[in-house]
């Protein structure tokens, strides 16, 4: 496979180890505040009881906004350091030391983590504010904010950890928060089941994580970033590939990548702000973060990187196809999320050539996808929580603010210049072509499909004709909800340009962490951009022809086989059910049978056998003294015989 050319290039382009990490001092040593603030918020909100019901949402918002403000302060402080002097370790306490395996609860603040911190706290703050309005009528709003804060704290720990094991705490913490939030309306059985499914599927990924950590311990004797990355050079490629694949498994779980993608669509059962924050902007990108963070390992593990590329490519196409067929607006967006994360994975798999673009796309995606989800939430809010797009239509006049911001997000995601998505996605497509034409083509087709399904969403929701339920009275959302929309809309417009060109841009910013490298492209960049744009316009046009030119039926038509398959999530669930759940249930049931009849049965059978034998032998106990006397005499005689036989002469 031509992908192997990455190997040599990757090795050649290997930067001189990671940048040196400095002990934090001054402001930076207060990095722990970033985590502590939302954690405190969560603790107060969850343990505070009913008396905080009225002020709970404010405490929650204050905690996150405070963390954001502090992150900005830290960011500014980092800017005052040299470009290659911006990695700081913030020691907290020694976690434990078992048999020479020492784990310290340290934080690592560097260019990569601060980018995530800003994204998480920034977008997080906006979504918190939005939630004030969205959850206004929910009696458990305080609890909701508590969970959100918990999520933010865990996510920050994830990105700030300086040790894989500490990262894992955050990793599971966000999983827990996601579980709690998906199942927030747990009186709905579907929500409870979706929450459990998300957690369990993530646990499959965690298996990979745990085994990766175990492998690291065997190979490096530690899980701290510093030691692992420093030692990666000397490790066998086989081990590095193993670790890389195991980490990829973990990333697949968290980022809903193939083959562990099935939980994400169900996760839309949660409240929409949750979908925006956790299942679009931040948590699901943790897998990408993990891969990029482990750059030192992947750089030296070509097979693992190939696997990352494959997973990313497959998922980006799968997600896009699923997104085309869903009538549920949130599920369509969820499919899109899968697909976009597929792009990021693909980029991350490209190695130093793609790491920075993966993060770049991750951030812009955080902006516009949060924007889109919140917009969808705003639509639902105005339409009595209706999610079926076939029941929307012509809402642009009813909800102008939502429409405008959604439109900006739409343009960003399909990659129309100069919106944010254009810059990030186009770079990935370029890098993919630089690596392998086939992969590049897939990425390009993905862009076209993206344009198709996003145009479809746009048209079905805001254009075409009214198909509302009779009792629907669409109205614009309150200010507290539209204001975050405007903010995110602005970021969707300016985020791409801003990140790319202000102060050297994100690629330079991340370079000390991720390294940098350029491939020769098979075609000139301009041609590639032009091709991509053509594909995008084509996709949008097809959607326009299919949905704007023809009336949209309220009932979904039967559709072609591909549509049917896409509606069923490309049979992901069916596969899981047939291959894992059914046999699992059968296994469980048969094991219960084996336990009762076999293992326990053997024991009880033995007892019964002894009992039966005793019942037989009991007949020897006639109760007649003379029988017993006879036995005694015979026994005494036998003893005498035995003594005679063994007598020492």
């Amino acid at each position: 496979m031509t992908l192997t050319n990455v190997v040599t290039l990757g090795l050649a382009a290997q930067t001189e180890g990671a940048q040196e990490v400095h002990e934090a001092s001054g402001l930076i040593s207060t990095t722990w505040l970033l985590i502590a603030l939302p954690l405190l918020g969560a603790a107060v909100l969850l343990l505070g009881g009913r008396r905080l019901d009225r002020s709970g949402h404010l405490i929650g918002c204050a905690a996150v906004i405070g963390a954001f403000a502090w992150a900005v302060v830290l960011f500014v402080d980092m800017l005052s350091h040299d470009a290659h002097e911006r990695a700081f370790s913030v020691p907290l306490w020694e976690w434990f030391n078992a048999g020479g395996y020492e784990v310290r609860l340290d934080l690592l603040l560097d260019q990569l983590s601060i980018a995530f911190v800003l994204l998480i706290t920034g977008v997080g703050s906006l979504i918190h504010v939005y939630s004030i309005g969205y959850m206004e009528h929910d009696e458990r709003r305080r609890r909701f904010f508590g969970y959100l804060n918990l999520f933010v704290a865990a996510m920050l720990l994830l990105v700030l950890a300086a040790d894989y094991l500490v990262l894992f705490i955050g990793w599971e913490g966000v999983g827990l928060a996601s579980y709690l939030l998906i199942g927030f309306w747990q009186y709905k059985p579907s929500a409870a089941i979706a929450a459990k499914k998300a957690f369990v599927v993530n646990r499959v990924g965690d298996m990979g994580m745990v085994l990766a950590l175990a492998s690291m311990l065997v190979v490096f004797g530690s899980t701290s970033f510093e030691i692992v990355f420093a030692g990666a050079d000397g490790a066998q490629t086989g081990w590095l590939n193993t670790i890389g694949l195991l980490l990829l498994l973990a990333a697949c779980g968290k980022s809903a990548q193939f083959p562990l993608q099935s939980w994400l669509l169900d996760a839309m059962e949660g409240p929409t702000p949750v979908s925006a924050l956790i299942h679009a902007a931040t948590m699901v990108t943790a897998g990408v973060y993990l891969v990029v963070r482990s750059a030192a390992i992947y750089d030296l593990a070509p097979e693992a990187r190939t696997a990352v590329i494959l997973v990313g490519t497959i998922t980006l196409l799968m997600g896009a196809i699923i997104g085309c067929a869903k009538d549920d607006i949130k599920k369509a967006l969820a499919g899109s999320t899968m697909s976009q994360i597929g792009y990021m994975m693909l980029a991350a798999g490209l190695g130093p050539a793609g790491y920075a673009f993966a993060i770049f796309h991750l951030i812009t995606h955080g902006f516009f996808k949060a924007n889109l989800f919140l917009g969808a939430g705003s639509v639902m809010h105005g339409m009595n929580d209706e999610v079926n797009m076939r029941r929307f239509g012509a809402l642009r006049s009813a909800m102008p603010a939502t429409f405008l911001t959604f439109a900006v997000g739409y343009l960003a995601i399909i990659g129309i210049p100069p919106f944010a998505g254009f810059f990030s996605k186009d770079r990935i497509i370029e890098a993919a072509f630089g690596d392998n034409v086939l992969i590049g083509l897939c990425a390009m087709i993905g862009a076209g499909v993206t344009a198709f399904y996003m145009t479809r969403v746009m048209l079905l929701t805001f254009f075409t004709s009214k198909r509302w339920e009779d009792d629907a009275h669409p109205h614009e959302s309150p200010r507290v909800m539209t204001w975050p929309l405007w903010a995110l809309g602005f970021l969707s417009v300016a985020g791409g340009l801003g990140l790319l060109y202000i102060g050297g841009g994100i690629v330079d910013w991340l370079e000390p962490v991720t390294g940098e490298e350029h491939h020769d492209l098979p075609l000139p960049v301009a041609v590639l951009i032009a091709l991509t744009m053509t594909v995008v316009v084509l996709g949008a046009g097809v959607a326009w022809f299919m949905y704007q030119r023809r009336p949209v039926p309220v009932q979904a038509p039967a559709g072609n086989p591909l549509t049917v398959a896409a509606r069923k999530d490309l049979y992901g669930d069916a596969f899981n059910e047939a291959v894992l759940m059914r046999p699992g249930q059968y296994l469980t049931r048969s094991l219960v049978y084996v336990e009762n009849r076999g293992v326990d049965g053997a024991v009880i059978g033995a007892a019964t056998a002894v009992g039966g034998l005793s019942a037989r032998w009991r007949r020897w106990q006639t109760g007649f003294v003379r029988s017993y006397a006879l036995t005694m005499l015979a026994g005494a005689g036998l003893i005498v015989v035995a003594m005679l036989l063994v007598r020492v002469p």
Partner: protein
Amino acid sequence: MTFPWLTTLIAVPALGAVLTALVPQGRSRLAKQVALAFAILTLGFAVAVIAQFDLGGDRFQLTEQNEWISALGIYWALGVDGIGVALVGLTAVATPIVALAMWPEAEESKRDPKVYFALLLAVEALTITAFVAKDLLLFYIVFEAMLIPLYFMIGMYGGPQRRYAALKFLLYNLFGGLVMLAAVIGVYAESADAGQASFLLADLMALDIPVETQRWLFLGFMLAFAIKAPLWPFHTWLPDAAAEATPSNAAFLSGVADKVGTFGMIALAVPLFPQAAEDFAPVIVALAVISIIYGALLAIGQTDMKRLIGYTSISHFGFIVLGIFALTDRGMTGSTFYMINHGLSTIALFVIVGFMISRRQSRLIADYGGIQKPAPKLAGAFLIAGLSGLALPPLATFLSEFLVIVGTFEEYRAAAVVATLGIVLAALYILWLYQRTMTGPVGEENADTRDLGLRETIVVAPLLALILAVGVFPRTVVDVIDEGVGPTLSDVGVEAPDPLVSVTDQAAEGDEE
């Protein structure tokens, strides 16, 4: 002569048991108060013992040694190492909590509740003795004697099938115990052959027993411990006992008393017969992995909450045994740590399930649903306890499970990989249980479920707080345990392996270049 701390630590609950039993009939409240007071007093003494444990000091501390039956070389010999002191701590913490949790339980049966509390204190005294005994026969005696109060606790107070469960429990453990007795005598005979006949563990560990003999003796010990622990396929008594005993009794049984089995593996089976332990390790590791998966799968298939938790314990005991017989430092430290954490989390789970049962009078999962709405605190406590059961970081159980897997991975790759399946299954059985009982629409019969009361909060809160606190600040506990594990493993002759890539070496090479 120094103050006999350990003897006192044993004597206090024993005295408490006697005094509780002596409380006049009918004054059950007083009896309970006496029992609780003594349990707390024991906790105080245990804290004193732990405080005196000197990290970096001798391997066995606070030792006492008095001749008991000198003609046979039997001693009243006590002492704690890191492992013992940790488990003593667990026992002392668990007892007052369990005592408080069982407050109303004993009344549900028609018998006098004071007996129940007296028996609990008796089990505590015996369990502590087992953890600090430094004489093999003393250990054996308490190992067996423990069955008596537990038998009565299960058989007198409990569900409709309690007699069956109690008998099964007794027969299983007695069988293992008798086989162990033969092995104990075998060890004694070996020590007699070597010159000075003695039951003192220090003397016995110094023996050089031939490998062939070691194997037989090891099997004798292991059978008893594997039944107690319990390991597949010797486990079937536990689900019955867990289901039929009162919830707090089940909690104490699987949370604390059964730890004597795994403690015996670490403190006796491995150091006494190091060669045999190494020879049999692969077999036991295989059994442990089967236990993990088997217990988890069966837990998924249960319809009875207490039985379900019983099966989860089998799965968790599988992890503990796995870590022990990986015979690595991390594995064994993880296992010992796991014992503590599993104790806490299982007690929490059983106790909370007990609270649910006391409200609804049913053990069946199907009878519940939507409890979260009327009783959010109950549901929250249940969720946290459950999460610690599925080893979610940073709860304490995570670290121990992780260390076990890591320790196993060092020696037995395949076993570790299969064992990690256990963490997926754990998520499934816990969350499915939570989903079926706590979420979903509220049925009419559950609509006015009471939330946690004051007593119940006092029972649950310290457990959950401990689980979290130990998870976040595990250092001291792990250090103490590591202190005991190190010498144990060096008895076996195991050294911690060096990592394949040593960063310090590399740095040195780099400098040379």
